């Protein structure tokens, strides 16, 4: 697959000396939908703005289709940016907003009109084409911004929290449209968001950032199942994290000695015995058992079984919310679906076993 966008050791240091982005390395394939995800201030927007040419880069290289674009101003980069504030031109109609980029490029009127009409149709904006943009709804404005950015046929579309200003329902609708649009057009999308659900549902790959650095680049699924760092484990999904030291590695299985006993998980790298590690268990992978079934469940779960005492519990519809206390004194919040655990199995003060298969847990270096 050909790469559309390459960031090579890209760095950004603000004038006052604070580093905003450090050693950002990423290769994006043509037609890929990639999301930058992270808490605010993690450098994701700065990185996007560096790709768009709105921020100078302090170190490294940015290439688009092999061409180094570090020093090109925004208007000479094959990128289009979609802003959270929509940034529509308030003194123009919808149609004029969209045709603006083509007009300035002196595209002949016939061709221009055809392109604008097609874009209006694609985004369902025909009915409001002659309206001024001021009085339109957020969803309409967002579609206009998309149409305006796409009509100039960029190689890469940059989206800076484009759904941030929309309400939840509309956001879901536009999310779907965005995904379909991207698939149809086959353009590379780089999407910045601080909303997990957005990044995970839209993108082919997610770049999780924290404090100016990349924490992990992987598919949405792998972020859940194989977090690479402690930050990712805490930021994505609902994970239980235990500290310990590696005792042995067997294939991809790594055994970690923790205060709760020996626990086993998977790892992509080899761990030497004695190395400090963390074992990350998604709460969704945790099974609950009666305390007296210890022997039979131990085998099935590679020895992963912790006994715990049920604390508070409350039923919310079909889900029972449990708080269980571990022998170490730590409390965990778990959910038990009623159809999986019928009857009232978990009484306050009752003993339960928590188990998970080794493949479901991930071991990372501490």
């Amino acid at each position, binding site marked *: 697959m050909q790469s559309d966008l390459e960031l090579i050791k890209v760095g950004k240091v603000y004038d006052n000396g604070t580093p905003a982005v450090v050693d950002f390395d990423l290769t994006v394939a043509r037609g890929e939908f990639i999301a930058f995800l992270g808490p605010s201030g993690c450098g994701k927007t700065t990185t996007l703005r560096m790709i768009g*040419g709105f921020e100078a880069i302090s170190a490294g290289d940015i290439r688009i289709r092999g061409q180094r674009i570090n020093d090109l101003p*925004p*208007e000479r980069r094959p990128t289009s940016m979609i802003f959270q504030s929509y940034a*529509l*031109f*308030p003194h*123009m109609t919808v149609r004029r907003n969209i045709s603006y*980029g083509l007009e300035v490029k002196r595209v002949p009127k016939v061709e221009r009109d055809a392109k604008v009409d097609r874009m209006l149709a694609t985004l369902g904006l025909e009915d409001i084409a002659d309206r001024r943009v001021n009085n339109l709804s957020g969803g309409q404005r967002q579609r206009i911004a998309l149409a*305006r950015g796409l009509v100039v046929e960029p190689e890469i579309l*940059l989206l800076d929290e484009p759904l941030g200003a929309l309400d939840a329902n509309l956001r879901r609708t536009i999310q779907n449209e965005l995904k379909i649009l991207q698939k149809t057009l086959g353009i590379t999308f780089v999407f910045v968001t601080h909303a997990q659900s957005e990044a995970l549902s839209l993108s082919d790959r997610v770049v999780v950032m924290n404090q100016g650095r990349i924490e992990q680049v992987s598919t949405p699924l792998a972020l859940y199942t194989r977090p690479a760092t402690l930050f990712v484990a805490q930021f994505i999904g609902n994970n239980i994290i235990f500290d310990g030291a590696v005792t042995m590695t067997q294939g991809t299985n790594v055994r970690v000695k923790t205060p709760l006993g020996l626990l086993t998980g998977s790892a992509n790298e080899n761990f030497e015995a004695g190395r400090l590690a963390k074992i990350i268990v998604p709460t969704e992978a945790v099974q609950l058992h009666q305390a007296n079934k210890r022997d039979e469940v131990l085998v099935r779960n590679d020895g992963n079984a912790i006994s715990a005492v049920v604390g508070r519990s409350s039923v919310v519809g079909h889900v029972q919310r449990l708080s269980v206390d571990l022998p170490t004194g730590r409390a965990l919040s778990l959910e038990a679906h009623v159809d999986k655990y019928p009857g009232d199995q978990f009484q306050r003060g009752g003993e339960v076993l928590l188990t998970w298969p080794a493949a479901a847990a991930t071991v990372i270096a501490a």
Partner: protein
Amino acid sequence: MQSAVMKPALALYTTLFLVFLYAPFAILAILSFQTGPEGGPQFPIIEWSSYWYQHLFGLAPPSRVAPLPIGESLFRSMTLAFMTMIVSTVLGVMSAQAFRSRFKGSGIVFYLIVLGMMVPGVLVGLGMALVANFFGIDRHWWSTAFVLHVVYTFPFAFLVMLAIFNRFDKSVEEASWSLGVSPARTFRKVTFPLIFPGVLSAMLFAFTLSYDEFSRTLFASGRDLTLPLAIYGTFAVEIHPNVFAFGVLTTLFSFALLGVYAILMSLSVRRARRIAIQEE
């Protein structure tokens, strides 16, 4: 409860404010209809007449009251105000644009610009006169005085534009760049139309401030007088209601100017709309 007291109080306050603002002008306007040439600038009105208006335009029979020397000075003041308006507004827009990004020494430059409207006019006027003398430059309304007018009105235009840019959403410009439009063209096609109401305000400020500028012009304008100086000159002899009549006409002119401003303002909005429709 509170508004039952507050609202009438505020209404009274506003009324008083407006009375104090406009009463002097109203008195002046009334007195301008005093009969002439024997009627003076005081009450009571001996007889209502438009004598002083006729006198102003040289239509009254010759009398002991000399006509107001306004013909040429009015032209000078208008020309000067127009030149000042153009230069100050262009400078104001450009410097406010520069201040959108913090540059080294921007703080000092800001105060240096604003100083132009802070320093006492008499001092600057005198200083200009001395400097001109020292270098052997002739003082004229269109040279030394013009420079001082720009120094005085430019900060106003600058501050107006600064306030306008302060509320300006920069991402609109960035969106334009990102569509492949150069910054210069973006300024013309996007930025300028959006800041145009502010530009009009800056122009209005510069024009009116320059038009009735007195203290700076007094020392810096040399032999040919501008309108405020010419009128002041007549006070030295005796005040006749013809000055009031002229004041009324000038004020009407100012209102006309405001009217033009309002029309231009609404036109700029309508024009954008019309262009948009024509495009179809």
